[in-house]
């Protein structure tokens, strides 16, 4: 018996060592690009990117302490401006760059992930499905009572995002078909603020990044399609946007290595772990 345990333990240890070595080899393979390099990478901009960026930064810095990577927030607009002015190496955006931005700064974009945007209501709301047309009419102010879409008799409280929001842009373009959003709608400043506003207000309707959906808010199906990552991946759910990394000109050295790492198998795993759909 004792012998068996010892034997078993030895086998287990061996297996563990083997798998650790294998994993190490795999990780080292991708992190090899950073071996022997030193220097720093500064990253700023879009807030949706941060979990992925931080995860990557941590792994790279652990493998090579000679490299320093800083990750700052600020939003898509800040990301463009900082990378354009040369203040950071990578500026992240949750929207494609405008032609003016590309022309002024000579920026190059690298899309690495897909994120969906879903209509959100309170869990107390009985409405379980909305058509795209109903959503358009609600945000245009033409339907102003939940009764109009099969809910209870109560005024609809509209919540939207500011014009700088990448989430708003994709929602407006792909779901509202560039239709109007009434000026009386409440405006909140982030996905997080939208979530708490809609969670607290039983007559609210708003929209959030799919990554932000949880039990505090409810996402009605859109034309019968549930806004899930699977449906976004298969193309059944069409309200999606890309997340971009942007550099000034073609990336060189460390910066190029970092972007390749994010686009590589490890980066894909980290992107998926953060709740987004990797593009590659």
């Amino acid at each position, binding site marked *: 018996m004792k012998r068996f345990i010892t034997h078993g333990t030895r086998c287990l240890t061996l297996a563990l060592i083997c798998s650790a070595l294998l994993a190490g080899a795999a990780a080292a393979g991708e992190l090899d690009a950073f071996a022997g390099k030193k220097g720093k990478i500064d990253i700023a901009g879009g807030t949706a990117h941060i979990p992925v960026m931080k995860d990557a930064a941590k792994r790279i810095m652990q493998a090579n302490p000679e490299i320093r990577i800083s990750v700052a927030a600020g939003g898509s607009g800040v990301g463009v401006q900082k990378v354009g002015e040369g203040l950071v190496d990578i500026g992240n955006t949750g929207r494609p760059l405008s032609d003016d931005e590309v022309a002024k700064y000579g920026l190059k974009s690298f899309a690495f992930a897909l994120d969906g945007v879903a209509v959100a209501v309170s869990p107390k709301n009985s409405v379980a499905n909305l058509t795209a047309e109903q959503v358009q009419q609600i945000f245009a102010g033409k339907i102003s009572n939940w009764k109009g879409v099969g809910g209870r008799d109560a005024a609809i409280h509209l919540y939207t995002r*500011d014009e700088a929001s990448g989430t708003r842009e994709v929602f407006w373009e792909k779901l509202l078909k560039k239709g109007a959003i009434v000026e009386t709608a409440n405006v909140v400043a982030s996905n997080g603020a939208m979530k708490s506003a809609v969670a607290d207000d039983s007559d609210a309707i708003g929209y959030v990044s799919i990554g932000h959906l949880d039990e505090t808010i409810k996402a009605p199906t859109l034309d019968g399609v549930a806004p899930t990552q699977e449906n976004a991946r298969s193309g059944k759910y069409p309200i999606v946007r890309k997340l971009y990394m942007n550099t000034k000109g073609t990336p060189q050295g460390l910066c190029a290595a970092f972007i390749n790492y994010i686009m590589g198998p490890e980066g894909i795993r980290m992107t998926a772990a953060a709740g987004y759909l990797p593009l590659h």
Partner: protein
Amino acid sequence: MAARLLYCAAAVSALAVLAILAFLVYFSLPLFQGDQLAALFSWHWRPLQNEFGILPMIAASLALAVSSMLVAYPLALGVCCFAHGLGPDWAARPLLVAVRLMSSVPTVVYGLVAAFSLVPLIRGASSGSGLCWLAALLTLAVLALPTIVLLLDNQFQRLESEIRLTAAALGLTRVQEMLQLTLPLSSRGLVMAAILGFGRALGDTLVPLMLAGNAPQPPLSLLDPMRTLTAHIALVVATDSQSAAYNSLFACGLILFLLTVLVNLGLRRIRTGATAHG
């Protein structure tokens, strides 16, 4: 040496203010030319249709600052009169300590507490979402109150040390002293406190951003959402930095700056005016 350092410090501060003004004017100058100006001074903020009207935000800023002062100022005056003679002595000190404590609470805490208590209350009592002028007004009033109280308290204390003996010799009660002497004599302090409180209410960003709903529409009802200039800048600053929407922010900044300057000039005028009379 010390004097030179002080001169340097003074010069740097003065230059900083001038530089801010110069930058704001420089960046907003293109907006004040030709048809851009008409776009700026319209009632519609629809950047996607090239309408960059900031009139609703200017109106909201002024309406919110004035209305919150209408609530905060009488309350603050009452607190000060209570603490300086109209109320019992034993209550005066704890009251002022409490107000001082209020002034050290960060703005975001007021905003957060109001978002989870006041907003649902207003939502329950009306058909709106609760994020509205009224919610921001009441919270801003609480925020500006300590500033006004502390200024008035200072003023009253200074005056009382001067007139206490005279008042006592005349046989005035503390209530009479407050109503007949302290209040009339501190007219300039009363105005200064009002103006500084107004500046505090006008300049606050977080409370309107969190509580007022930020809908860019003229402030017509206490229960409708509104967007102040400060909240507007905070919301739009993350936008495409080459866009006209972004550029219009400099005009917002300039207008806020000028309003603050006007408030300060008003303050200065009242101070010198009072000295001339005194």
